[in-house]
């Protein structure tokens, strides 16, 4: 891992609110060899809109670290947008194995850094603390053998604890629910590992459904504005996964996507749902979808 860019951190805007940008503008925030990270979980708060924008921009060589993911990461893999992936899980759970992920790995198109929960969270904790490594317990599984690069060189004096090397993403993309006028970001329910990911990363983009003028009066913020460098305000940015208080997981759309990839009809799906503006994307859905539940 490269050392923390302290100069950049010192220069990072502090009291000023994060800058509002579009999905497209985010793509040029970092160099082409940067390590991106996607937050969220298998069912909610996943940056699907950013995934679609990356494909529209024609990126083919992304290095990506992902929390457990379904649609956004699988879509990127199905579209050949990723060359290297750090992941512990890509799956559609009861809907079956992830077809884009399977094809990318089984055809040798994708290189992979296999990690699991203890390795990923140790690596992020190390980065968040500006430490070279963080200790994880030996669990007996094959991850350290499959990914020897995840283990740092350090003698901890306990054979049952191993040092996991820090991983610091250059740009992390998170999908919250809404922001307030100061740029604090809110998740009405769980935020999974997104706070840790934000503290471990050089730059953070938070995508939200809307700016709520009274947001700071409703509930405690999940991500304080000083951890958020850029905001993308785009309704349905997390669709077809769930954003609590805005929309549920869209079962029908998930099945449409899976059918398209499994039947080698991704181009058809992409024409309809990816190579369209976010506004057009919203128009194609039920007009009541995405309206906040009062």
């Amino acid at each position: 891992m490269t050392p923390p860019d302290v100069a950049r951190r010192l220069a990072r805007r502090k009291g000023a609110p994060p800058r509002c940008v579009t999905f497209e503008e985010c793509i040029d925030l970092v160099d082409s060899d940067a390590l991106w990270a996607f937050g969220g979980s298998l069912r909610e708060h996943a940056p699907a809109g950013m995934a679609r924008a990356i494909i529209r921009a024609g990126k083919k060589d992304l290095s990506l670290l992902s929390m457990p993911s379904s649609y956004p990461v699988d879509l990127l893999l199905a579209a050949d947008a990723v060359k290297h992936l750090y992941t512990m899980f890509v799956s559609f759970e009861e809907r079956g194995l992830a077809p884009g992920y399977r094809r990318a790995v089984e055809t040798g198109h994708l290189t992979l850094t296999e990690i699991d929960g203890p390795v990923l969270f140790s690596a992020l904790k190390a980065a968040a603390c500006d430490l070279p490594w963080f200790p994880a317990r030996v669990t007996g599984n094959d991850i350290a053998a499959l990914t020897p690069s995840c283990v740092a060189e350090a003698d901890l004096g306990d054979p049952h604890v191993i040092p996991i090397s820090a991983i610091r993403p250059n740009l992390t993309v998170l999908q919250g629910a809404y922001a307030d006028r100061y740029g604090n970001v809110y998740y009405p329910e769980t935020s999974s590992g997104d706070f840790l990911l934000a503290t471990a990363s050089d730059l953070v983009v938070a995508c939200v459904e809307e700016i709520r003028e009274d947001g700071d009066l409703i509930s405690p913020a999940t991500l304080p504005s000083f951890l958020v460098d850029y905001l993308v305000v785009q309704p349905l940015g997390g669709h077809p996964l769930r954003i609590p208080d805005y929309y549920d997981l869209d079962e029908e759309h998930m099945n449409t996507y899976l059918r398209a990839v499994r039947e080698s009809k991704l181009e058809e799906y992409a024409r309809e749902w990816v190579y369209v503006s976010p506004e057009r994307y919203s128009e194609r859905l039920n007009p009541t979808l995405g309206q906040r539940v009062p």
Partner: protein
Amino acid sequence: MTILGHGDRLSEADILAIRLSRTIHDGTLGIVGAASGLHVTAYRLAQALHAPNFSFITAIDGALFHGSAIDGTPTAGACVPRFRRSLSDMVDLIDWQYGAFDVAILGGLQVDCYGNTNTIAIGDYSAPRLRGPGPIGQGALSALATEYHIVMENHSPRSFVDSVDHVSAFGHERHGRTRKSLGLPTSGPVAIHTPLAQFSFLGAPPRASLTGVMPGVTVEDVQARTGFAVASAEKVEEIEPPSDREIEALLTARGD
């Protein structure tokens, strides 16, 4: 597929959920991970039937399911009401702390006789025949939860193998390493549950031993569907089919 004359009301997964629910102890805390519909059903049934003070969390979306309220009102057995999923950043509990959870349920593409499971890949790692979803928190839960159950919905020689291709969760033994030599103070897998049978881990090191078969299933049937040599316990019992009370609770939990 339906069995046991319950018409089309019960699937194999339903029956597995009922059987799993019987293993849950009252007054404990459980956890479920990804692809866990069957596991959640089992836990909810346990709460409704015999373990009102069993609670569990869903690691993926941070929900906590109580079996009963502080005034004793039962909460299980009915459709889960909408409520806030509020547990964030539980990684210290899931990935570092011993015994934070009393019980977990894991599955896999493969399992071997020592209870090692594989959700990573089938075949050579760099050129797999089948890429699985990945290890997620299997390693942590298998090492840290006080005990866990393995559920294999597909009981076939391809999934029950002599030696798993890759280990996502360490069971009891692998290439001479044991839970003790790895410094793991927890119990590890206690049983493998399949639509046909139940294996418990007996001996030293503990090995999957056939302890129960579903009605109408023979030891030979189980061996024909198992890729490793089946060791039978002294007594192989017939697994109790779902009772009317269990079926009623399941149908209520499903909202039928």
